[in-house]
């Protein structure tokens, strides 16, 4: 292994560790933004970390009648998210896992995590678990077409669905980022990320009313360390997807395929800033909108599907010849 690839391994490891440590802080920051805008003091940026520490020290409780699916699902969600964090070009372009999974693979891993949690919700055999799972899988099924079409639109300029190639093509040719195709894909992807991470207006992450819950209803039976893992994983999913979004549409500052230590440092600082800005904007936006009625969500997703379809067609018709 050459020195260069050692550095890209270092960058990938740093990505994973940064997502692990930083994700609860991102969620804490978003809650803080929301609290301030609503005129509350808020629990502070570190509150999710304090919650995690508390949950991790609690007793492990297994609901009677559940199987290994319930026990393993949090680890599968967390595991898929960690793997995605290792694949994505967040700090540098040269992840050793980049050729192993392109954007289709990443979307597949994301859905694998969703499926694990929905199965866990069904495994409990309660009405709420089933209700949450049913709603979550319905949204996931309708999100998939948009995600894959947005991937398609993004892969047209770089002629590849591999992430490093997409980001590199965007960095080389910044003009196409403001092309209609790219902008439409941005909006479509933003909507599906909101739906997939369970944010407003699709799902309310801080709801305490079971009848309106989606994600929370599904994980209602989790407690203690397993709940900690579920919440940690959901924070990591949000962070990773925001990071992906940031680098797909604002690719500047990312370190190259064989980064220098300074490049890694710059990449780290820049991606952290991008994620924080996006997260802050998302939190601020959420203050002003209410949760959509569940059966209105498909309309939103159908809209985003159309946007993604237009994005592909637009990027075909307005494509700048690359060769």
């Amino acid at each position, binding site marked *: 292994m050459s020195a260069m690839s050692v550095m890209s391994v270092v960058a990938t490891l740093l990505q994973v560790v940064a997502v692990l440590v930083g994700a609860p802080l991102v969620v804490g920051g978003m809650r803080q933004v929301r609290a301030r805008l609503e005129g509350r003091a808020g629990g502070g940026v570190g509150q999710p970390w304090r919650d995690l520490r508390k949950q*991790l*020290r609690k*007793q*492990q*409780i297994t*609901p*009677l*009648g559940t*199987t290994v699916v319930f026990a*393993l699902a949090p*680890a599968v969600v*967390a*595991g*898929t998210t*960690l793997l995605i964090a290792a694949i994505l070009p967040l700090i540098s372009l040269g992840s050793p896992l980049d*050729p*192993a*999974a*392109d954007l*289709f*693979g990443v979307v*597949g*891993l994301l*859905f694998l995590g969703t*499926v694990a949690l929905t199965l866990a919700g*069904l*495994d*409990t*055999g*309660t009405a709420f678990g*089933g209700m949450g*799972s*049913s*709603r979550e*899988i*319905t949204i996931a*099924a*309708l999100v*998939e*077409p*948009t995600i*894959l*079409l947005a991937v398609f639109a993004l892969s*047209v300029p770089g*002629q*590849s*669905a*591999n992430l490093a190639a997409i980001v590199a093509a965007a960095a080389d040719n910044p003009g196409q980022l403001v092309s209609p195709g790219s902008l439409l894909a941005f909006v479509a992807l933003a909507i599906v990320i909101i739906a997939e991470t369970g944010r407003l207006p699709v799902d309310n992450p801080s709801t305490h009313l079971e009848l309106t819950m989606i994600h929370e209803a599904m994980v*209602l039976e989790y407690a203690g*360390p*397993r709940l*900690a893992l579920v919440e940690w*994983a959901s924070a990591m999913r949000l962070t990773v997807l925001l990071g992906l979004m940031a680098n797909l549409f604002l690719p500047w500052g990312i370190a190259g395929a064989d980064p220098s230590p300074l490049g890694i440092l710059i990449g780290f600082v820049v991606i952290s800033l991008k994620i924080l800005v996006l997260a802050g904007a998302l939190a601020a936006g959420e203050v002003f909108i209410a949760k959509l009625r*569940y*059966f209105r969500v498909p309309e939103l997703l159908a809209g985003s*599907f159309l946007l993604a379809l237009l994005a*592909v067609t637009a990027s*075909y*018709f307005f*494509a700048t010849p690359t060769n």
Partner: protein
Amino acid sequence: MTTALHEFPTVPTPGQTLRAARRARVHAVLSGGLTAALGTVGVALGLSVIFGGPRELRVGWLLPLVGVQLNLDALGGLFVAVTGAVSAAVGIYTVGYARREHLARFPLTVLPLFVAAMMLVPAAGSVTTFLLTWELMAAASLVLVLSEHHRAEVRSAGVFYAVMTQLGFAAILLALVLLSAAGGGDSFDTISASSGDIPSGTRTAIFLLTLLGFGSKAGLLPLHAWLPRAHPEAPSPVSALMSAAMVNMGIYGIIRFDLDILGQGHPSPHWWGLTLMIFGAVSAVFGVLQASVATDLKRLLAYSTTENMGLITLALGAAALLSSYGAMAVAALAMTAALLLILSHAAFKTLAFLAAGSVLAATGLRDLDKLGGLARRMPGTTVMFGIAALGASGLPLGAGFVGEWLLLQSLIHSPHDDTTLLMLVMPLSVGAVALTTGLGIAAMVKAFGVGFLARPRSAAAEAAREAPASMLTGMGLAAAACTVSAVAPVLFGPLLERVLTALPTLGGEAAGPMLGAYLRLPGVTGSIAPGLIAVALVVAVLLALALARWGGRHRPAAVQAPLWACGADSLSPRMQYTATSFAEPLQRVFDNVLRPETDVEVTHYAESQYLVEKVTYRTLQADPVEQRLYTPVVRAVTAWAQYVRRAHPGSVHLYLAYGAIGLLVVLVVAR
């Protein structure tokens, strides 16, 4: 008359019972063993043909005038090998299944015959032989569907299947007669050599007729209606054979006649590929929608077959369309996707039907609304169905993932410089494939989560016990095939390459995708490594588990506790979500397409209209295509038959006159 026999049941002596049991065991072992042996021979033969070159066999005396002509080439070899692999797993499974479910002697005798007929279809080298083997396969499968003919639903499904398969056969017969007349011969080689001379009108007629005939066998819309009827009613090993092997023959027919034989003369026109893509996409989306709202486990799997055959046809159509535009490299990609999807679908659908069969044998239930809690009672079968469901949902680590990935790659990498048609078709196809995958995930989560997890919803599910070793072994074989196509499709690489090379019209000369540890696409940047993803995912999950142990020394010992019952005494299994309730949001979202019949009846107390005494909710999800399209046709045919009946007054003299007139007409016409 028959009831008289049942009025005096003879009580068998213990010796008779014992002898009957022993005889049943011998039958099961013989039939299952023969099926498995035939399957193994098929795999060996298929592989030897793919890697060793074509084989030929001519039996002149078997069929008068033309003789039986068997020619096995690489394409046929692939289908023989797939059929053989499915049969090997099904054969071993049947040994246990036949004893547990008391399969009668007759279906057990026909089972190996059906397998043999299916393996002869791709080996046929002439039009007559093909038609003979095709009809043999259809007849054998019909007998097997009717195994439990004492039930009315089975008889109705049998009639449906018989009519549709014979109408399909009529279309194929007509198409092949046209082909053979225009191509100047009976053997495929002769026809291929002169297929360039076939006039375009005849080519179009042949394409449309074969699409009709083979499409109905493959279960494509709107000719899919026999699938969700026949597959649930047939014994499960037969369902597995039909759904994983027999429907492939429809795909084989389309490849052989439309893309291979007719394609060798002229490149196929654009609209052929486009038509295939449209039929494929519509079948895929409709099939998966029906699967996602189905509550009968085997019906769900049957609709999933329509979905997968749709995806395969979409891939075939993409290959044909792309090669008609001269984009051979991408066409080769789409063709590889189609072949890989055939392999993976055969693996996971065999496994799924066999696992559904062991659930049926253990509980007598196919209704997901009454199942549940099988994970604790039948752990082996649950794991098997889990592997199959993961494969069917097209997620990473599942058998179907790599095939769908290749299909998506071929769609997004199609040339788009100056062909408006491709610019519009490809994004829509990606949308269709993506919607199919998304809904497929929902269908499979429902099948596995509601059917196998949670708590049992009926006494029968509560009393389930694990399947015997032979059934688990049969399923284990299929599960191994699923695992290979999920994490090591590299093993299929050389095989698919050989088959692709034998199909020059579909980009066989262009380099196909390289199926190494990393799947790489020639000419474009794109790669994936399913095996590496699997290993990395295991490492990541272990890491997550290690993280969850952090702070563990402060924790009290782990305990089990009852579920949270919202403050009530306890939760009854009836409070769980069922398959119907799980799919209700999807049913509502796709209300316009699915057209479910729902009926809500609210009964109030007599004292006050504000208090509800009970609510009755009834929902019936029929097949809208069947209702809209088939019912009028059946009604018209019935009316016509009533009309024709007037000519049958029962007078022998009149019938003799009919015969004489008919003979005279034939003589005059044939003169």
